[in-house]
């Protein structure tokens, strides 16, 4: 007698469509910035420096007279890309390390988990800073740093999922009919682990984008004159009273991206929990 009254949540569909539209625009900007940009993002024009938003320059111009709107559009690829790359790496490394740890001998597993404990004892951003301090600045290093900062959570989840799935009845049943242990792991355990960890990743993307932007704000990522949101924010911070638009628009772009990614991530998670229940 299971009659499920599926609740419809209108709030979800509204949030979903707004976030989806924002992300679609950002994806377009990342893939084909030329379609959206109105100016060359690197073209300096000192005569029209620090102009407020107008029909010619929708988001105004910065201190070198570059079009802020076009720079925001061109920055999308790099800013979002670093976050995506970092999350993807963290997912990949996390699933492999976590599920290996789960099936390793107890001593190895315990040692690996203590390393994870140490990493997760520090705030993610601090770990990322530390890694950049060791590796040196640069966009690739930022991605690596954000990966290392984010990976403990993925390792932990992947390990827990592996252990609980490996103990389920259907996995045992496959082993008992004589399917080799490694094959059982690849066929029945890993796909489930990947599913659970991917859901976490959709929420993690937002955090990673933010961390990456934070690092380039501190000047540890791409360097001038590259269009990157964190860097633009940093360049505009001294002009906040004089020409707020220089910092506000890249800031809004970061906020909109992170909020949209998180909203969609949460909806994905809610859906997958509903399915699991």
């Amino acid at each position, binding site marked *: *007698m299971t*009659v*499920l*009254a*599926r*609740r419809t949540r209108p709030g979800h569909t509204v949030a979903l469509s707004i976030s989806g539209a924002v992300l679609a625009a950002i994806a377009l900007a990342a893939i084909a910035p030329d379609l959206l940009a109105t100016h060359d993002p690197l073209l300096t024009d000192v005569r029209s420096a620090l102009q407020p938003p107008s029909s010619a320059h929708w988001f105004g111009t910065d201190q070198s007279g570059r079009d802020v709107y076009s720079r925001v559009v061109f920055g999308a690829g790099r800013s979002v890309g670093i976050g995506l790359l970092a999350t993807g790496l963290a997912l990949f490394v996390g699933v492999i390390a976590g599920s290996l740890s789960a099936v390793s001998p107890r001593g190895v597993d315990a040692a690996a988990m203590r390393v994870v404990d140490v990493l997760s004892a520090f705030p993610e951003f601090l770990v990322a800073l530390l890694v950049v301090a060791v590796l040196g600045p640069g966009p690739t290093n930022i991605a690596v740093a954000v990966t290392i900062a984010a990976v403990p959570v993925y390792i932990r989840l992947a390990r827990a999922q592996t252990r609980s799935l490996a103990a*389920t*009845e*259907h*996995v*045992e*049943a*496959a*082993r*008992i*009919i*004589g*399917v080799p242990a490694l094959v059982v792991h690849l*066929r*029945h355990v890993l*796909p*489930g682990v990947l599913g659970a960890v991917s859901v976490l990743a959709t929420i993690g993307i937002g955090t990673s984008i933010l961390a990456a932007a934070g690092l380039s704000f501190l000047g540890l990522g791409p360097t001038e004159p590259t269009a990157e949101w964190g860097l633009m924010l940093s360049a505009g911070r001294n002009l906040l009273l004089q020409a707020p638009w220089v910092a506000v628009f890249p800031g809004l772009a970061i906020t909109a991206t992170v909020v949209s990614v998180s909203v969609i991530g949460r909806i994905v998670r809610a859906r997958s929990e509903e399915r699991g229940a």
Partner: protein
Amino acid sequence: MSGLRLRGLRVDGPEGAIVRGLDLDVAPGECVAIVGESGAGKSMSARALLGLVPEGLSWSVDDLEIDGTSARSLTERQWRSLRGRRIALVSQDALVSLDPLRRVGAEVAEPVRIHEPAVRGDALADRVRDSLDRVSMSEPDERARQYPHELSGGLRQRALIASALSAKPAVLVTDEPTTALDATVQVRVLDLVRRIADDGVAVVFISHDLGAVARVADRVVVMHEGRVVETGVTAEVLASPRDPVTRELVAAVSHEPLGRAPRTDAPLFTARSVTKRFGERVAVDDVSFEVRRGRTLAVVGESGSGKTTLARLAVGVTAADAGTLSFEGRPWTPDAARGSDRRRVQLVQQNPWGALDPRWSVGRTLTEAVAAGGVRRAERRRAVAALLEEVGLSPAFARRRPAQLSGGQRQRVAIARALAVSPDLLVLDEPVSALDASVRAKILDRLLALQSERDLALIFVTHDLDIVAAIADDVIVMKDGRVVDSGTVSCVFAAPRHPFTRELLAAAGVRPPGA
């Protein structure tokens, strides 16, 4: 008449009617059972009696009177003043229904706090003690301070009943209150339900278990697909059922022993003085048995008696601490079980909901199994179809996912998977205990047919003596890890040696001659 009076209950869901016109009268001091298979509309009717129909479903009654109060069109607020005070619900799973973070005493006190705010302090403590006393909880003061997880299943169910009774409702609705309990515990809880009715409460008893119904109910209402198909005095309905649905229900719970001739060939599987410990606890203690081809050994006992551990030892996934297991005369250990004999001993697990990979279609699961059994790629599809037919499912089921199957269908698929590797011995751990009686009977029939077609040896773990009679030749009765009774089914049933066996037989309603 006070008590409960219901006329014309209808509950409609998105996929059609769930309850199509139920009338019910329960007088104070009377216990009326609603029986039927899952999906018959019993639980939904129970919920409707308390105004607890889930959101998204619509329901209506021509008349509903609870303890003299009309409840035909009440607001949620009015319902809340009725629930607990006039009518209360005891549901199936006490572990889920009791708040794990609250002490039993607080749980029992809650209805009183809500409905009689004047009762406080010592008076409230007295009420809690009275309620726990009423359900025969020993040491009520100590129990009140405990958390649900500290109590056994039977005590938890008693605590739940105590909390339902604490505000002294006139009507008590119990939804499968004993299904999750062991047979001997079940009997004690059933006796309690009967006593509550004798004290003047109108009791509605929802169950799929006719044995339980026979023990407590004065009258019985049989439901099928939302309709009442038969109603009458319990003893009369059970003795001479008129409706085919009732007849099937009654037939499913009464079995004569099989009485197959014993086989004299060498045993296929033997256990000699097998012992298994988990830390200090001895799960299986000095157990010996033999199984022959084409015959069934039933392993009977309550939860915690070591049945499942014994099944796992037999399958070769757990190592024995002492004693020997042998398969065709060769030692059978987890190491041996990893070798070429792996597929010859197979397991069917208890829980049909966890036994199949939820992401995989039935076809994919079975294909993996026939591949493990060495069937060549080109022939796998045909082998899967043949297996499905063997367990009584159409080959079209190969495309379904576990979520699209009923419990019985899942268990058939699990049996098909175990058969895919052509085993000689099949170990079944409570394979039908999660299923309805008529589904259970069909699966047992299928198993018996498969057994004679394939000359299969079966080890059948169960807590249900009816099933033992239906399928087994020999039986061992386990208690606290030890075998307390063993022999052929007819001998053990006719002349149980151990008091525990007698208690089990009595709980199952089997009356040994002279006892």
